[in-house]
């Protein structure tokens, strides 16, 4: 090969590297645009009044998103109440009986569950809870979100527990400690950071979910604490008001978007800090 050819090849290599770098960083641009735009449009709408009032009817300026905030917190609280115990127990099961036939099918089902479109989960919650109970309810929304949280919690619990050295568990067994005490006195305390980060990731993920709530929590323009009745939530409020033609409602939606975004970002950063501090691999 002559020298010109080598120069051509090296040049090509450099060009490829530059093009790859450009394309890779091009992904960040829309993200920055989106974050910047949302924050610029919404941050001016947020004040104390915005946080402690419920939306006003069309035509009246002002109003806030208290009902959506309360609703989101309540719905997610009950979803966590359902999903976290079940998820952690199922994760322990998978980590402890990794090779059994049932565990294989269970893992397969968790994989399937992770990929199910959120709207399908909404339909399911509608037929399992809304129809039998006779009305849209926050509880059915919680159940739908719980189904979405399960795979994340299960996976992170399983992965965390698998990484723990088996000598830890064996030492505990050798002391004659029964299985359940080994789990909740030894295994869970050691793996708590991984499990916790999985839980927070799951909460961050379902906070922004709208589709499962459309036919379950349904939305409610008033403040409500009754979980057997329809309830508003942040993503639902954004969806309903963002598609409305009224400026006041659009402003509410922008403000709510910023709050939702901050909530999700904070949870993600918190998870990052936990995983960095305890060096968890997720």
């Amino acid at each position, binding site marked *: 090969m002559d020298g010109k050819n080598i120069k051509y090849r090296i040049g090509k290599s450099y060009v490829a590297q530059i093009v790859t770098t*450009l394309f*890779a960083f091009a*992904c*960040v641009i829309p993200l920055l645009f989106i974050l910047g735009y949302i924050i610029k449009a919404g941050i001016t709408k947020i004040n104390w009044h915005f946080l402690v009032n419920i939306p006003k009817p069309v035509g009246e300026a002002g109003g806030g998103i208290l009902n959506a905030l309360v609703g989101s917190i309540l719905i997610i609280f009950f979803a966590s109440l359902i999903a976290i115990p079940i998820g952690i127990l199922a994760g322990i099961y998978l980590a402890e009986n990794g090779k059994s036939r049932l565990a294989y099918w269970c893992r397969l089902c968790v994989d*399937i569950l992770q990929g199910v479109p959120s*709207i399908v989960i909404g339909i399911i919650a509608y037929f399992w809870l809304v129809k039998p109970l006779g009305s849209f309810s926050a509880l059915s929304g919680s159940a739908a979100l719980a189904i979405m949280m399960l795979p994340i919690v299960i996976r992170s619990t399983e992965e965390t527990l698998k990484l723990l050295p088996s000598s830890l568990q064996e030492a505990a067994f050798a002391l004659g400690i*029964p299985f359940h005490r080994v789990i909740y006195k030894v295994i869970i305390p050691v793996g708590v950071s991984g499990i916790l980060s999985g839980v927070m990731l799951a909460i961050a993920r379902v906070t922004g979910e709208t589709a499962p709530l459309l036919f379950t929590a349904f939305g409610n323009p008033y403040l409500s604490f009754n979980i057997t009745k329809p309830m508003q939530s942040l993503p639902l409020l954004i969806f309903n008001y*963002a598609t409305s033609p009224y400026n006041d409602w659009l402003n509410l939606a922008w403000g709510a978007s910023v709050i939702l975004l901050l909530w999700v*970002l904070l949870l*993600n950063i918190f998870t990052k800090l936990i995983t960095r501090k305890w060096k968890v691999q997720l």
Partner: protein
Amino acid sequence: MDTSVEKGIVTRNDLPLRVINSTPEGIFKAKRRVKRSFRQIRTETVFRRTLTIMGLLMIILVLGILLTLIIQSLPSIKSLGLKYLWGKVWDPVQDIYGAWPFLLGTLLSSFLALIISIPFSLAVAVFLGEYFPKGWMPDFLKNAVELIAAVPSVIYGFWGLAVLVPIVRNLETHIGVEPVGVGIFSSSLILAIMIIPYAASLGRSMIQMVPSPLKEAAYGLGATRWEVIRSVVLPYTKSGLFAGILLSLGRALGETMAVTMVIGNTSLIPKNIFAPGNTMASVIANEFTEADKPVYLSALIELGLVLFLVTVVINLIGKKIIDRFTNE
């Protein structure tokens, strides 16, 4: 203590026995101790059983979802049959149900999004996996890409509606199609941004798993960096990258909110990629609560069933490929 120990066999009798005082207090203590250890054993069994039940619960959950979808869509399967999927008209008022507009809308928007996003996600994967695995700049990029996945889809939809749709409308006036703004092209753009992280993060971990002797051998033969990537790294990780793209596709097919907000929501067959349309997920989101006739509702649920089956198959194939790749 005379015979068995000398023979080297330990029997039950040789284990140290606990001496129980024959006072009432001693007997009471011993009873309590026995009760406690039995309770521990019982709890242990119950706990193990609970764990197994939780494992079973996942299987029941998935089967339950499948069965519910099938049972609820039976009326429409019975009355409309298979031609439902190829029916070109969706008009609930006159009881005509054809899913073709939505299938077409879903396929168009998802594949368009996939085509737009592949170069970017591959670039991120190669950049983070091969060019710069460590340092503050790749860390920033990695966190930013993860952030793309973290932003709620309704926020993407809202941004799309407020910012992207006017831009697309301008573009449409320039190239001379009907300037509506909302439509399949807008939703593909939004989807393309949203699905970048899935293929990128999987591709990155796959590329990092390429054995370095392979790469070093290629360098030793005088290959440039790009030639190593093109003829060693990419062929080696081919199946893994494909799996990442499949998982992205699964996401794109099932994405509801962002698409619903910018696709325009008409039940007509889209004439071109700029025309408004509807995807399977968005038509369910829009019409589910309005469906007043049993067949109408059931037809919508059948769409959900199709969506469920398609995403399950895509995800399982993707997972299988990843498992095979990581076990090798």
